[in-house]
């Protein structure tokens, strides 16, 4: 009796917004910093302090809402979510429950079979992040750092529209790209600027009612998310198959052990006693403000893909890889702006850049070299000032240290030697030193010329113009 099950997944995605200051005070949002240095009476919940909303937070939330096809709620409000925890200085979080800023959106993903599917977005709301607890096991104390307290977040709540880990990853990648393109966040899962909680249930194919769902937390990478989904799906199916019930609960994923454990069940779920935040006035988003934000929306990936093909005439495949990261797309456009030659710039990004990223286990976001330097390198290679092997050598330096290629080529004397006199001398010497190869060549072994070219390049320390070497060699032979 093998029954067939389907997984039903919805996501709650928290994204830290890239504002310079916190959501309700003027403190810095910079990551790191000595504990409790980015704090003030407001973000430490001191008695008598009051929140003042950061306008940029509303604009970022609107931008994400517009880019994910949401309806913007032009009269939205903040509410208080009440719960006690030491990282939450007021013991309530200012969030949005009753009137969130965005509703009823969705993004399109590509499924495994290549077809398109829309994942619905139920709502997006704005809220403040909590501080961080540091547990000192040595002294058996917990210490709280409020630097993160009040960092702005948006929570993107999807509909339960996903059916597999692949769809979840596709959805998250889509969201991440959109948000990065908007500049609203860097969306780094490992640093916590993007966090996803997975709500999952299973149902028998053909069922009409959803099964009981669980919520999985502590998912810090796409890989962990995929594994947690697989694990939780199997756990729930095992329960059902053995005649047990799935309990509605929050579970914590332990990626090292590839298993999860229950944190709290619905029965002991807290009553957050939400009510409208009396210290903040309702936010009215005027038509003008909405239009202003809409008109400032940057070009998103879909539009870029089309433009790269039509304007830069680069292949779809190249465009897809380059636009898979906002950082890389920016780098590409800025470089082309400086030196033209889109295909050549694309080749550097598609080839050497991707190779080195893979080799160093880096993300495109981690690229350090500047468009100015890449443009300079493209020009140097294109003008024949350096040959292609030298160019690759220079690029590697540039990749690690953002080295200035012009300066590097100068300092290391890597310019291609185009001086025919000097070349001729060197080649004559090579011919004298390698009579066997010369004979082979004359006896019809075409390959022998390759050896002689190599010897010449070696003697010229790689700086010779290969075309010229070939020409002179043949002449002399």
């Amino acid at each position, binding site marked *: 009796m093998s029954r067939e099950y389907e997984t039903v997944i919805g996501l709650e995605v928290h994204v830290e917004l890239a504002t310079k200051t916190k959501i309700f005070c003027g403190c810095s949002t910079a990551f790191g910093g000595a504990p409790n240095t980015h704090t003030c009476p407001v973000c430490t919940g001191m008695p008598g302090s*009051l929140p*003042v909303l950061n306008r940029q937070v509303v604009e970022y939330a609107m931008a994400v809402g517009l880019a994910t096809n949401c309806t913007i709620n032009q009269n939205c409000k903040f509410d208080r979510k009440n719960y006690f925890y030491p990282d939450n200085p007021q013991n309530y979080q200012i969030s949005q429950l009753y009137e969130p800023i965005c509703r009823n959106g969705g993004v399109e993903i590509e499924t495994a079979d290549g077809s398109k599917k829309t994942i619905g977005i139920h709502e997006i709301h704005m809220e403040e992040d909590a501080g961080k607890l540091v547990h000192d096991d040595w002294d058996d104390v917990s210490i709280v750092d409020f630097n993160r307290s009040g960092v702005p977040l948006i929570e993107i709540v999807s509909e339960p529209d996903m059916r597999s880990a692949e769809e979840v990853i596709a959805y998250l990648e889509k969201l991440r790209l959109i948000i990065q393109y908007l500049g609203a966040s860097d969306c780094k899962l490992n640093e916590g600027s993007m966090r996803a909680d997975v709500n999952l249930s299973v149902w028998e194919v053909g069922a009409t009612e959803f099964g009981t769902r669980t919520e999985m937390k502590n998912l810090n990478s796409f890989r962990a998310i995929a594994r947690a989904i697989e694990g939780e799906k199997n756990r729930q199916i095992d329960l059902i198959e053995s005649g047990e019930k799935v309990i509605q609960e929050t579970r914590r994923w332990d990626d090292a052990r590839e298993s999860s454990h229950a944190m709290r069940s619905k029965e002991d779920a807290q*009553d957050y006693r939400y*009510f409208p935040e009396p210290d*903040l006035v309702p936010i009215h988003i005027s038509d003008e403000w909405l239009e202003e934000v809409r008109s400032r929306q940057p070009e998103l990936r879909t539009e870029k893909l089309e433009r790269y093909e039509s304007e830069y005439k680069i292949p779809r495949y190249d465009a897809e890889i380059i636009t898979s990261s906002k950082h890389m797309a920016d780098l590409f456009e800025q470089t082309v702006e400086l030196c033209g030659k889109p295909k050549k710039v694309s080749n550097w990004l598609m080839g050497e850049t991707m190779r080195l990223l893979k080799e160093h286990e880096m993300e495109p976001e981690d690229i350090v070299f500047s468009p100015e330097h890449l443009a300079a390198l493209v020009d140097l290679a294109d003008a024949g000032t350096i040959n292609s092997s030298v160019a690759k050598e220079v690029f590697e330096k540039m990749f690690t240290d953002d080295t200035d290629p012009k300066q590097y080529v100068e300092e290391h004397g890597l310019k291609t030697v185009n001086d025919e006199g000097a070349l001729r001398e060197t080649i004559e010497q090579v011919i004298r030193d390698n009579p066997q190869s010369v004979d082979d060549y004359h006896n019809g072994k075409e390959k022998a010329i390759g050896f002689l070219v190599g010897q010449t390049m070696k003697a010229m320390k790689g700086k010779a113009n290969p075309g010229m070497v070939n020409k002179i060699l043949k002449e002399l032979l």
Partner: protein
Amino acid sequence: MSLMSLTAVELGKLIQKKEVTAVEATEEALAAITAREEAVHSYVTVDAERAMQRAHKVQEQITAGELTSPLAGVPVAIKDNMCTKGLKTTCSSKILYNFIPTYTAEAVLRLEHAGAVILGKTNMDEFAMGSTTETSAYGVTRNPWNTEHVPGGSSGGSCAAVAAEECSYALGSDTGGSIRQPSSFCGVTGIKPTYGTVSRYGLIAYGSSLDQIGPIAKDVTDCATVLEAISAHDPKDSTSVKREDTDFTQALVDDVKGMRIGIPNDYFGEGLDADVRERILTAAKELEKKGAIVEHFDLGLVKYAIPAYYVIACAEASSNLARFDGVKYGYRTEDYDGLHQMYKKSRSEGFGAEVKRRIMLGSFVLSSGYYDAYYLKALRVKALIKQAFDDAFAKYDVILGPAAPTTAPKLGASLSDPIQMYLGDIYTISVNLAGLPGISLPCGLDSHGLPVGLQLIGDCFQEKKIIRAAYAFEQTRDYARSSIAQEQNGGAS
């Protein structure tokens, strides 16, 4: 005569004329405090040393002509729920017994800029929850007119300090009548401004949507002067209103000809003391004699104000007071096992009974399944009450009535019956729900020699109308000094 028997504006004038120094004024205030605190206990904290330092500094600035405000060098008392940098701020609660703020409340800061000398922090009902100042963790304050009686609350310490002439004027806060009712009981004048007029930044919140800071003083002129000094739009308070018409002293005009005054019949029903009724109606006649048009009308909905108020105020308080948890500052229980127990014991031991009652009430009305039935319904009542006032203000410039149904009760008489105590707020509460300005000023004594307070209510942003009416009424009588102020006068200076 002690300098403390002068009004704040009178004293400020003498200081500006160089007839008196800020140092002398502060010395006299501190001497009065020393002489009368045992009998009255208006203050939780007296900051004598820094007050004297400050007085010297302010006097230097006055002498140099740098400080010309009418309040420069005049000593003031601050209710202990307003943050004062470096000066203990307890809200009269054990849970904040050691709390020293790192910043000063905006309203207090504005007084400091005007050259005020802060004497100390006044007693109050714990977290402003109460109508008698008996719920303070630091002892009761007594009414300077009769020390067997309460001063009212929650700004009982501020009102008693003004009545006992232990300061020239004071700041209070009013969430459901906490300035007007104790002003009435202590025979002084207090204004609760329109919501949003005075910044709440640094005011330790009780009911955020209702709280307003206001002045308490001997007369209307002082109150208008102080209110003018502390009113300003504050970008740090999102509920602060930008308004231009804060030149309240311009309304100190003895002319009410043609002013339309409405007396709500609802304020003269069951529970109103006969003496209070008589004094209030006499006051209305005085205004009528001066040319005001006085009419009786039905306001409606008054009986719904108290339940709506307690639902809204307690709901907000249950959340506002959550931060007092023993983690970051204030009281933490000595023995505990784990986080949950630390929270529970610290809060159980740190809060008094009335505060706990209101936290529980507020938590209940916000809990899942009850939110709609209580909190949302209370918000609808609030909107209806505002509508009833809007209708009334279409017909009247000012609404006139008592500030409280009785004069000051005896110590201990109120706490045994909290419902009765809550009902005592019936005439003041709806003003907070509707966000309106209200003033209470003395209008005579009852048969026991205790003061009766006349309340005048204005439409939103119409402080000037109630100031004008109050000022005109005030001209018909002399300021009556409390017995403590009179009897201790010689000894104090």
